[in-house]
């Protein structure tokens, strides 16, 4: 009976020692994780893009480095997009002075420009509206559902992806605060 217990203890210690060795062997060397790879996923660099606004101005994501950015992909025919936009506008108004930017990328390839412009004017949106006319950014960000939002910190790293909507105002406020806490 005692021999059985001792064998069990020895086996357990062996397993735990092996486990500890595996933990040590699989430790990650500093700076070798995903930070520098561009991909539309949390923990990765936000893929860069350059898109025109309806007024013809061009905005590049890379130019906004150092500022927290919300990239929101939307279309005028999408009900949850319509539902969450007023909350995005309110949060933008509250944090704009601290450097928060919203890039509302209209999936123009799946929408019509007149409908998109009417949507913007109807909801009184004051943040930059970008037109993805050829669907390149939608493809780059692997858009599968509208709306989709990417919270990007000052270093250009995506911190959270929200697929679908509507996002609540509290969620927006909390995530924007968290982006500011991460700094640039």
């Amino acid at each position: 009976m005692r021999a059985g217990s001792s064998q069990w203890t020895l086996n357990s210690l062996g397993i735990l020692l092996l486990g500890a060795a595996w933990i040590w062997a699989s430790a990650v060397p500093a700076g070798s994780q995903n930070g520098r790879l561009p991909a539309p996923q949390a923990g990765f660099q936000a893929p860069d893009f350059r898109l025109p606004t309806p007024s013809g101005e061009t905005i590049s994501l890379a130019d906004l480095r150092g500022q927290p950015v919300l990239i929101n992909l939307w279309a005028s025919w999408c009900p949850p997009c319509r539902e969450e936009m007023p909350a995005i506008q309110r949060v933008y108004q509250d944090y704009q002075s601290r450097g928060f930017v919203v890039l509302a990328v209209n999936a123009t390839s799946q929408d019509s420009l007149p409908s998109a412009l009417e949507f913007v004017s109807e909801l009184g949106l004051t943040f930059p509206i970008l037109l993805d006319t050829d669907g390149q950014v939608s493809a780059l960000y692997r858009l599968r559902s509208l709306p989709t939002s990417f919270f990007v910190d000052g270093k250009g790293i995506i911190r959270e992806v929200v697929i679908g909507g509507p996002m609540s105002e509290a969620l927006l406020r909390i995530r924007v605060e968290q982006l500011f806490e991460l700094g640039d």
Partner: protein
Amino acid sequence: MLPTLQVGPLAVQVPGLVLLIGLWLGLSLAERRAGWYQTAPANLYNLVLVGLIAGVSGARLVYVARYPAAFAASPLSLISLNPGLLDSTGGVAVALLAAMVFRQRKQMPGWPTLDALTHLMAVLAIALEVAHLASGEAFGSPTGLPWGIELWGARRHPSQIYAILAASLILGWLSLPQTQRKAGRPGVTFLAFVCFSAGARLFLEAFRGDSLLLVGGLRAAQLVSWLALALGLIGLARLQRIGEKTVHRVQS
């Protein structure tokens, strides 16, 4: 990767759907096998239901307590369906507390109840990894191996598939007749499940590309798994000793 499924105008979140199906299948299996552990299926079902309702409500309330200003600015967010507004740790704590109170009230024995719940946990573990596969989360580290998959800009270990296979093996072990025979020794099924699951996570975490890192590049999940494995082994040793003492007393 299939994070959403477009059904007409509705975008169904596949990971959430998979978890719900996993919960239903796991609960059905646990109810069917409750008899192995002399546990009433109805009590088991209600225990899970109470834990679930308390867990989700608790997760939201703890989140509100953490960020009161954001909810004060937008009180309607309290009832928002955004899963991002849930505190998982708080939710688990509240769920456990509610389940413990329910268990005491219904006078359900501790170890047999945990043993019966193990079948639910095993199915949920598979569902969780399928959900990760659908969302592209819990992805692997880059690899040159031929079975690597293209994901997030690199060829990577299919870490979600490794985890699905490991969880399926554990579920397979739970279904073995030998496991059923051990059901007569309360606690053994649950603690063995903890050891197998912790061991699998400890091993497979090394192939993940999104690990939370601690000092020296150590992976947090591996350390937690090692601790769970140690506690599981200690628990099994204690149960074994208690069993041996009982046999000794009966013989003398």
